[in-house]
């Protein structure tokens, strides 16, 4: 079945350093979503990318969707302690894209 792989699994940075997580799908995606899960919390939707090559920014977060719509990345500039958590990408599967398949997530920890 369709798989979505994320790397790295873990990333530890000093506060102020940049962070990037990468997502790769085994098949072409109609769109890709990103979620953030704080420690002990639940996943919260961040963004959805739809167009080939699309780039979207949310303050210090930059999201990219690859030209072939099979990969995506999330880049955080100058990390802050509030960025701690696990970041998941997810792609739609199934008839009518009713379901999402999630990557394993990248857990970000930050040294203040």
């Amino acid at each position: 079945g369709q798989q979505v792989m994320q790397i790295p699994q873990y990333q530890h940075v000093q506060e102020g350093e940049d962070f990037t997580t990468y997502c790769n799908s085994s098949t072409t995606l109609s769109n890709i979503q990103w979620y953030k899960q704080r420690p002990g919390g639940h996943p919260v939707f961040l963004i959805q990318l739809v167009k080939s090559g699309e780039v979207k920014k949310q303050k210090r977060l930059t999201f990219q969707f690859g030209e072939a719509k099979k990969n995506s990345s999330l880049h955080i500039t100058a990390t802050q302690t509030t960025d701690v958590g696990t970041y998941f990408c997810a792609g739609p599967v199934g008839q009518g894209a009713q379901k999402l398949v999630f990557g394993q997530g990248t857990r970000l920890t930050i040294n203040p």
Partner: protein
Amino acid sequence: NAGVTQTPKFRILKIGQSMTLQCAQDMNHNYMYWYRQDPGMGLKLIYYSVGAGITDKGEVPNGYNVSRSTTEDFPLRLELAAPSQTSVYFCASSTLLAGWNEQFFGPGTRLTVL
């Protein structure tokens, strides 16, 4: 709006016991989902529903059952609990409107089977 609510927050079961995890949403979403998240892992889909009366299996349905009698509620039933079902269970809902499938998650139920 309360969004997606789940009860209970925590539960400890003995092997072989059964229980129902409750999930409700007040956003009039057609689509509802149950995921499990094992420690340090991603989310795996157990069951989902595209509307009242319609349910389908996800990636890991064995040992679970669901029903969807109303738009608002989507309970998950565990029969004959096993230690392998120790996990955090998240319920989610979405509208899937014009290709937009943002999923709204509940706070989760932490289940331990001993």
